[in-house]
């Protein structure tokens, strides 16, 4: 990034937005599960959803440098919104998805006014506290959310009036992957815009940005709302494809998991969350089969190793191995 900092900003951004062959190959490869592992399409759908959730965290953490320990709040809020709409008799997936996205966006916009005021430990604790507050509220309001039993009775209609959500997950994966790709395009556009550059400026030096005239709080509010919308969509996808919503969607565990996923893959790299989600979910699926309790031993070891040996995540490590090629930043 530093090498081109002196060049024309416009040309720099234009160079960044060009599609690389590796990226095109990656997205083509996401179609492989339909052919190679048709029995694992439900897992693939979960991976796509987790990837979208991690991508939304990447926007605020990887680009704007806002560390959040409560990002599951928006995921769970979207999830419950989508689930409740379907439960109350409107099972159309796409409109449900949009309504859930809007609801999560409103919640994100409202909380962003708090978020933009704080940094460091206070920010981490406030995001954590807001997430826990929402989880406790959902737990208490069991007449609405079903409490610890989860939301029952979610029935989805056919997608586009044609495709039933089946047991094998063909529809679920197609649907999740399509939504992930669309929102990935949005995220890619956002971070390769001047607005995206401003976000990176906030990450690099939060004090200097207002000093050179950037409206940092407004930028933070904007990106936080976008991230909340994306997290809400991810949650809604989970509710619609599994036809149930549990309190776990709002839990601290989910916030921590998505952070781990993003860091494993590499934060601030756009593909980091997706790569992290693939590795994490596949590893969990395989290792939990052996012994679910010790899964955390391996994920903990992996985290320590990544922080000590690969400070920029797996993608950062790969990028260092290939110094001639510039990684998609």
């Amino acid at each position, binding site marked *: 990034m530093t090498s081109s900092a002196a060049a024309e900003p416009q040309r720099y951004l234009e160079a960044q937005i060009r599609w690389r062959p590796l990226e095109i190959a990656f997205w083509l490869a996401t179609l492989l599960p339909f052919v190679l592992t048709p029995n694992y399409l439900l897992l693939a759908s979960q991976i796509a959803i987790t990837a979208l959730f991690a991508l939304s965290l990447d926007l605020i953490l990887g680009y704007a440098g806002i560390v959040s320990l409560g990002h599951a709040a928006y995921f769970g809020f979207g999830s419950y919104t989508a689930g409740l709409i379907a439960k109350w008799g409107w099972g159309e997936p796409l409109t449900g998805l949009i309504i859930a996205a809007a609801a999560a966006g409103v919640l994100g916009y409202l909380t962003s006014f708090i978020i933009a005021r704080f940094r460091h430990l206070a920010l981490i604790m406030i995001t954590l506290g807001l997430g826990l*507050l929402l989880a406790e509220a959902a*737990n208490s309001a069991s007449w609405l959310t079903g409490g610890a039993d989860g939301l029952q009775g979610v029935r989805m209609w056919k997608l586009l009036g044609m495709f039933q959500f089946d047991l094998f997950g063909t529809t679920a994966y197609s649907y999740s992957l399509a939504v992930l790709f669309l929102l990935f395009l949005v995220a890619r556009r956002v971070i390769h815009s001047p607005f995206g550059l401003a976000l990176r400026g906030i990450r690099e030096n939060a004090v200097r940005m207002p000093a050179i005239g950037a409206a940092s709080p407004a930028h933070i509010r904007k990106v936080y709302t976008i991230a909340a919308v994306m997290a809400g969509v991810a949650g809604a996808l989970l509710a619609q494809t599994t036809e149930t919503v549990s309190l776990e969607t709002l839990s601290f565990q989910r916030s921590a998991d998505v952070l781990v996923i993003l860091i494993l893959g590499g934060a601030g790299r756009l593909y980091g969350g997706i790569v992290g989600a693939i590795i994490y979910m596949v590893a969990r699926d395989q290792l939990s089969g052996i012994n679910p309790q010790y899964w955390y031993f391996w994920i903990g070891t992996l*985290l320590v190793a990544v922080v000590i040996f690969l400070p920029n995540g797996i993608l950062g490590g790969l990028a260092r191995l290939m110094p001639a090629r510039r990684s998609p930043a």
Partner: protein
Amino acid sequence: MIASAFGVLFDGFAYGMLLFLLSVGLSVTLGMMNFVNLAHCSFAMLGGYVAVSVTNDLGWPFLVSLPVAFVAAAVASVAFERLLYRRLYRATDLDQCLLTIGIVFISVAVAAYVYGTIQQPLNVPSYLRGTISVMGQSVGVYRLFLIGVSLLVTLLLVATLEYTRFGAQVRAAVDNQRMARGLGINVDRVFAITFALGSGLAGLGGALAVEIVGLDHAFAFTYLVYVLIVVAVGGLGSIAGSFVAATLLGISDMAGKYYFPELGAFLIYFVMVTLLMWRPLGLFGRR
């Protein structure tokens, strides 16, 4: 059942003292080195398991197991500090968070492997069980003992910090690390000792906690949130702040559980978020 206001206050205060023991070390080390050590409660959990092991398996008296838990947690923390933490003093908050949460994950899995996932029983000697009557109110002997130990530790801590040379070095390093280095104070050594002491106190807290809140493999996770709340609300590097915040949290949590059980933990999270929005640096934070 409506508990008496005195009973709630007393139990809440005892609980708060426990939280204070668990969190004071983290507060001081965070204030000094800005090192976000989320694994602090793992050392507390270690202390708890050590106390359970030496009393149940080796048959040592409970009162002996407390200093053993302190020493075990302190020694373990020194090893971690040397091997892992030292590399990351200059790293970002996020890296420190991730490294230490990785250690939490590992410690939880190791505890589940060694001790299983059940609650660990601890045989408290008979003279610490039951209740006695103080001014017409019946109070638990063990809680009284817990409060006594915590107040003693607090007095020792304050005396060490205020009246010894080492305490002066710690205060200097918390106030301004670079200036302290410039004056020839070996901040790394001071920090290592403080870190060991703080983790030892967490270990002691963990050992004392077994009787009150129980001990299982998820302890390091469950109490991490409480400890972080105490540290953030009290302000970094402030013993008085941790004391006040822990007492507040203990009493409000206990009051919430007695009077509004349907709200769950809603109340304490709400108190924390409101307090932090009012004072982002905590009640006693200065920077």
